């Protein structure tokens, strides 16, 4: 096993609401290996973006991290750092490529000035070095360097802004980059070019990252392993190839089945009826059971934990823990 770059333990995030504290993320555990890209996949509202923001301790208000540690190897638990330490840690060690980069750039400042601001914020004395790095990044991102640095955000096309977002994310040479649906707003061809760029950087510089998306197809292009989230929990972590050939969790299987293919029986694909539950308070049963084609009696009795199934995969499903199933039965009787 490779060196772990980031390790998340028992991460739980809640959003206060009228109907109680909604648990957006529940006991999430994951390890990110150095030099690997992990796909974090799930549908809207499953908590994948909240996890990403939590990794920077920037969960949007009113969300609160109620439990957990976010341990960056060599730097310790982010949540235990002082605010100023956290501020400097962000972007220098972990950065984000946002879903809608066009909206994440200050509309009133030219790109070059935004780079200067970053330098100032992160106490980089020699701005020229940073601008030089920005130029060489622009080149490898196939951006017209001079034009881009002199432009205001609105003067760039969607695909260009997304590439500027990647440039800014890589500027301070962070160890980890979080990609939050970076291609969702793009056309299929721009999407392809952005993925290709990320892949190149990943292969060349051994980029470590988490790629958050709802699109299983994109994950197959970019990720080494895939973590599948459902209703705030991780239900499976498997190598990408396995997720496409024979995923462990019935939900992963359902996502795969819902992907319409270009070959084979066109009607082989099928949707998954129902919708995920809103979680308030502690969970005492499997959250997927109402939509699960392989539901068992034990699924009503306890929430399955994410357990190692074999060398490469983990799943949170009683299908893979018969012994535990027996245990629950014993406890019940």
């Amino acid at each position, binding site marked *: 096993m490779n060196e772990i770059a980031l390790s998340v333990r028992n991460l739980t995030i809640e959003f206060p609401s009228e109907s109680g504290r909604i648990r957006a993320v529940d006991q999430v555990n994951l390890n990110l290996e150095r030099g690997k890209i992990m796909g974090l996949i799930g549908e809207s509202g499953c908590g994948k973006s909240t996890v990403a923001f939590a990794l920077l301790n920037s969960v949007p208000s009113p969300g609160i991290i109620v439990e957990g540690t976010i341990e960056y190897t060599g730097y310790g638990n982010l949540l235990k750092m002082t605010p100023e330490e956290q501020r400097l840690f*962000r972007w220098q060690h972990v950065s984000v490529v946002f879903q809608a980069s066009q909206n994440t750039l200050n509309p*009133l400042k030219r790109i070059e000035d935004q780079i200067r*601001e970053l330098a100032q914020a992160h106490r980089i004395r020699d701005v020229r070095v940073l601008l030089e790095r920005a130029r060489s990044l622009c080149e490898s991102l196939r951006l017209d360097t001079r034009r881009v640095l002199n432009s205001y955000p609105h003067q760039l096309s969607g695909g260009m802004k997304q590439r500027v977002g990647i440039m800014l994310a890589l500027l301070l040479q962070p160890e980890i980059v979080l990609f939050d649906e970076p291609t969702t707003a793009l056309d299929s061809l721009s999407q392809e070019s952005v993925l290709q760029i990320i892949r190149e950087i990943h292969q060349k510089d051994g980029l470590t990252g988490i790629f958050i998306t709802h699109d299983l197809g994109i994950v197959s292009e970019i990720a080494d392993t895939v973590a599948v989230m459902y209703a705030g929990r991780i239900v499976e972590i498997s190598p990408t190839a396995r997720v496409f050939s024979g995923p462990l969790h019935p939900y992963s299987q359902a996502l795969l089945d819902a992907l319409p293919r270009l070959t084979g029986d066109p009607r082989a694909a099928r949707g998954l009826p129902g919708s995920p539950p809103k979680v308030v308070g502690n969970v005492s049963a499997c959250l997927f059971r109402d939509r699960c084609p392989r539901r068992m009696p034990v699924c009503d009795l306890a929430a399955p934990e994410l357990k190692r199934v074999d060398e490469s995969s983990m799943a949170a499903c009683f299908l893979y823990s018969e012994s535990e199933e027996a245990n629950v039965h014993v406890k019940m009787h």
Partner: protein
Amino acid sequence: MRVVRRFGVSLLMIWMVMTITFFMIRLMPGNPIMDAYLSLLQQGVPSQEAMAQIHVLYDVYPNQSVLTQYVLYVWHLLHGNFGTSIVYAGRPVLPLILASAPWTLMLVSIGITISFFIGLFLGVLIALNRNTWFDNVMSQIASIFHGIPNYVTGFIFLYFFTVMLPWFPFGNIYGNTVTPGLNFPFIASVAYHSVLPIAAYVFGAFGTWTLSTKSAAVAVLGDDFIQADKIRGLTPGQQLDHLIHNSVLPLFTGFVLSLGMMFGGAVFIEETFTIPGLGYLIAQSTSQRDYPVMQGCFLLLSSAVILANFLADMLYSRIDPRIRV
């Protein structure tokens, strides 16, 4: 090119507003020229002579049609002649206005600027502390002051600070012991006399600015780039700078327009504090049907507003790169 066209459109608008006010003023009930003419007739002056007297005094004949008056008015205007006052018989309008304008402009521009910056400060502060007790209390206060007309605040100030506690002088804009001019006692006296009217103006206006800044800042705070700024590790100062700069944009036009509007004077404040400003002049001339003075004041006001609008458009593209002329 666009600038020239916009300027041309502005001039056209000024002419249109001038024309409309000219006719609307003459639609108002009561006609001082006819009154003067009739009273001359009643005094037994022969009609020919009365007509001539009126013409000498007011530069119009009572039996002239409104259209002829209009053509004459425009003709005079093009020669820089704003006409002569009816009430202050024989006094030309322009010096009247020019004598009143400085007081108003001084009071109102200071008032607008102070209230704008107080509003900006409070609005951003409220937005940053949204849904806290500070937000609740301050927003309520701002709404209350937004709702209280400035003459009410003016009267309260007058009562408390000139009657109950005689800290400030009452009436006029400088004491009668100083000689107007560039001398210290005069300036000090003007400043002393201005405190209450400016305060009344500020208390009447800051609430509006606070509420609009708050809503602008709340909208900006919801923008992705503010969240991204935090994630990029920008300093709190840089984040605040981005917030303020982006929140000011939607207020900017309103600010410049209100600078144009100040040529309308602060009618009620000037009445309350008996300051001989433009508002006072407008109120007086309107109640006495002093057509040329009214017409002159309205022309000044509308030109100022239209030109301010033009200026706001031009300047806006300077502060917001997304709008380029």
